[in-house]
């Protein structure tokens, strides 16, 4: 599910708002919120910034589901507490999840280990070849978290890199 309604419902539940509470904040009816969440209608474009603010995300995140965030300096976590997850969904239905602690990734990059070149064996992993992990670390150090890479191959394999 990658619709606006789905994202609104998901974010609202995360924030523990009821449809009535959200509606009251936006000066619309609870039925209107229900319609948005069921993809029967869409919120007015002028409401999107306030809706995103109430749901604690960006308008882009609300519309596309891309959960990349640039955290301000006071909200950033130290690198030791972050994890780099590589998720691979093959077209055949296999799922692979690699959970790497960021210090280990940083260590690998500092030692000149070509992380992407070492991920061999399948088309999905070959897709990661072009990724410069030193740049990924630089982005994370500057406060970027979320799904920072999403690649879909012609075969239907999907690779995602998420920092959380």
């Amino acid at each position, binding site marked *: 599910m990658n619709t606006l309604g789905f994202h609104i419902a998901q974010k609202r539940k995360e924030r523990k708002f009821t449809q009535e509470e959200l509606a009251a904040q936006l000066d619309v009816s609870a039925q209107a919120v229900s319609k948005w969440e069921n993809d029967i209608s869409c919120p007015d474009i002028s409401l999107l910034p306030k809706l995103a603010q109430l749901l604690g995300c960006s308008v882009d995140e609300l519309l596309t589901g891309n959960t990349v965030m640039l955290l301000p300096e006071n909200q950033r976590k130290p690198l030791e507490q972050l994890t780099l997850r590589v998720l691979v969904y*093959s077209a*055949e*239905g*296999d*799922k*692979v*999840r*690699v*959970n*790497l*602690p960021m*210090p*280990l990734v940083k*260590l*690998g990059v500092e*030692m*000149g*280990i*070509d992380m992407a*070149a*070492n991920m*061999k064996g399948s088309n999905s992993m070959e897709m990661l070849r072009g990724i410069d992990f030193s740049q990924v670390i630089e982005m994370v150090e500057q406060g970027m978290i979320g799904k920072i890479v999403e690649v879909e191959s012609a075969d239907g394999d999907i690779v995602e890199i998420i920092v959380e």
Partner: protein
Amino acid sequence: MKIHVKADGITLCIPFPTRLLCNSLAIRIANRHADISIPPRAGRAIYREIRRLKCQNPDWNLVELQAAGGETVWIRL
């Protein structure tokens, strides 16, 4: 670390010493036979980092694999 394999109702758990995996000889063998390029001197630093991680998160799943056929493999520190 432990490698767990679950397939056809059978669960296998293979304990594997992390130090053995991270020594320079093992890395040299891996570089030669698995066609990867990790400098042999990196082993000690990688081991130290894995140890630190293991102390902080004893049940850390490094790799989780779920095959379409239902087989599951996971590597736990």
